[in-house]
């Protein structure tokens, strides 16, 4: 597949601003659905809105499409104010969660639906439909009845129907949630490739953190109508801005910590089970979040040391409390000395290395650089 010029060459921060939210609020009666959203989405970006149900992500997506009016603030698409522009006049198209395939039309009529007002000749339009179907891997399906398609095929028709209009922004509302796991994973890869090829800005709504991590250039994590963190997938995973974000994305262990002192770009901590640790300011969450300070770390940043192995950095003693075997991985819950709540450690299973039993006294290797401080 050919890579689009924009997605291939130009770094994100140098690209044109495609969508700009400025202090967007949305009320439904007394319910405050969006609470001051400010964010910028760039041209050719694959952007995800991630959050639990009811967090406002779909509402935000629908303000881009024009299906929801905003109560205050502004939404700009490609530099133009959109408040008075109805959905049919916006340079956006949407792939709906239910796909919204018109059941009384054929596949080809569905894909060509948006071309009705296009001045091109019927032959050219038919060619465009054929190309769009080919792009989504449904070449030759044009004459079929739409209601006879499988879930995955419906999704492709919905994609072709939206992309044939060459929108500036493609909006995807949980497009993969109705598919089963295998097809979903396959479609994730196909969507990424397609996006790179056409170079259109994609905005995806999902509640599936794995999907967001796999597909996106950047992700906005939303809770209760606010963006809790906007970052690229790696930053989001490694340096979550709050305990809540950390909890929502993957598994994060937390241990209570006490701040002993700070200065020179470092914070000195006394962490339960780990002892005294120095972390850098970058590892600490920016603003205080209330509650007791704690350090967090991902299960894969810890390693259980077998006999004869030594830690490269630091190590702490503990007892294995629970073992969950996954085939390629084993999850151990380990009670570090002096801590009641076990921490989860994920270990890749290596041929010839036995899975340890519950109750085994063990040593855990870790590194201060992998910690995140929440305070």
């Amino acid at each position, binding site marked *: 597949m050919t890579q689009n010029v924009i997605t291939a060459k130009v770094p994100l921060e140098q690209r044109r601003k495609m969508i700009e939210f400025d202090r967007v609020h949305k009320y439904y009666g007394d319910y405050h659905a969006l609470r001051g959203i400010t964010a910028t989405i760039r041209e050719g970006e694959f952007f995800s809105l991630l959050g639990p149900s009811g967090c406002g992500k779909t509402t935000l997506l629908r303000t881009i499409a024009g299906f929801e*009016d*905003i109560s*205050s603030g*502004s939404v700009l698409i490609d530099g133009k*104010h959109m*408040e*008075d522009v*109805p959905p049919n006049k916006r340079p956006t198209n949407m792939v709906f969660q239910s796909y919204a395939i018109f059941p009384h039309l054929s596949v080809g009529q569905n894909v060509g639906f948006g071309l009705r007002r296009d001045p091109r000749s019927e032959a050219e339009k038919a060619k465009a439909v054929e190309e769009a179907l080919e792009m989504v891997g449904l070449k030759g399906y044009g004459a079929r009845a739409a209601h006879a398609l499988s879930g995955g095929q419906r999704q492709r028709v919905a994609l072709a129907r939206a992309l044939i209009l060459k929108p500036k922004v493609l909006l995807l509302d949980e497009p993969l949630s109705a598919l089963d796991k295998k097809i979903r994973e396959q479609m994730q890869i196909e969507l990424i490739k397609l996006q790179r090829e056409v170079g259109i800005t994609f905005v995806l709504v999902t509640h599936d953190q794995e999907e967001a991590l796999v597909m996106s250039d950047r992700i906005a994590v939303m809770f209760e109508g606010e963006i809790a963190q906007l970052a690229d997938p790696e930053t989001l995973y490694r340096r979550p801005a709050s305990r809540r974000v950390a909890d929502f994305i993957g598994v994060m262990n937390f241990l209570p910590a006490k701040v002993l002192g700070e200065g020179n770009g470092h914070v000195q901590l006394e962490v339960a089970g780990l002892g005294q640790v120095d972390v850098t300011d970058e590892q600490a969450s920016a603003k205080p979040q209330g509650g007791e300070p704690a350090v967090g770390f991902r299960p894969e940043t810890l390693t259980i040391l077998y006999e004869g192995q030594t830690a490269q950095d630091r190590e702490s003693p503990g007892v294995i409390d629970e073992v969950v075997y996954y085939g390629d991985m084993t999850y151990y819950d380990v009670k570090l000395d002096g801590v009641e709540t076990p921490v989860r450690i994920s270990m890749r299973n290596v041929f010839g290395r036995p899975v340890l039993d519950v109750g085994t006294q063990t040593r855990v290797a870790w590194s201060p650089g992998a910690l995140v401080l929440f305070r």
Partner: protein
Amino acid sequence: MSASPIRRWARSEAASGWFMVSPTLIYAMLLLAAPLATIFAYSFFKDGYLVVIHEFTTQNYIDAWSDPIFRTILFRSVLVSALVTLVTVLLAFPIAYFISFVVPASNKSRWLFLITIPFWTSYLIRVFQWKVILNFNGVINSTLQGLGIIDSPLQMLNSIGAIAITLAHAYAPFAILPIFVSLEKIDRSLLEAGQDLGESKLMTFWRVTLPLAMPGVIGAVMIVFIPTIGDYVTPELIGGGKLPMVANMIQKDMLKIDNKPLGAAVAVSAMFVVAAVSLLFLFLNRRFLKVGK
């Protein structure tokens, strides 16, 4: 930079909804709400023989309610309606239960279709057919006499029982459908749970099925009771005009005697009695309706 409030309202859901419903709503306002309000107003006007005098009075109500004939007719109407409702709902419940629980899913709509067909054939002729069946020389009498079971024909017409059975027949589908719907909504695993917890079939029916079906039963009662009290045809044809009900009285006051204020007062009184009886019934069954929601 945001849309002007008026444009924004014009695009809002509320505006679209009102706009969409307005043709139908305006029609109902002009031809239903306004006439009902007029009837209500008329009932407080004076009758000046063929004209209506626009002067407030409660005399129409006093006249109506002090008239023993009116009280008898109203009482008879309520009695007949109550009887019809009781008979109709009692007869309908087992059928609704049968279709919902015994008939296989693929045949259900066929059964419902079968039950609604008679309902869509001429009401007048259906009512009249009961006269044919119950008449002095009608189907039942001639059959029984032919078989030598009775010597002289039975007098069945012109009775409240005859009126009741005719109306029970006419309103059968109205009673079956709501009960069927509420029975269909019952989660079948609840019944299994009931039996699993050691209840007998009968007790499960009594303690689980029936309370859950009550919203449908109540709906059936309302939908049968309210229109039957205003039935005009059956008392005329089956009651032989000798057992008039309230609709016949309204018709007489309005058209034959042409005392519109009195007719209006009778109509309004009848509506209030219907509403009062209905509300009382709903109030007595309020706990079932809460469960239903």
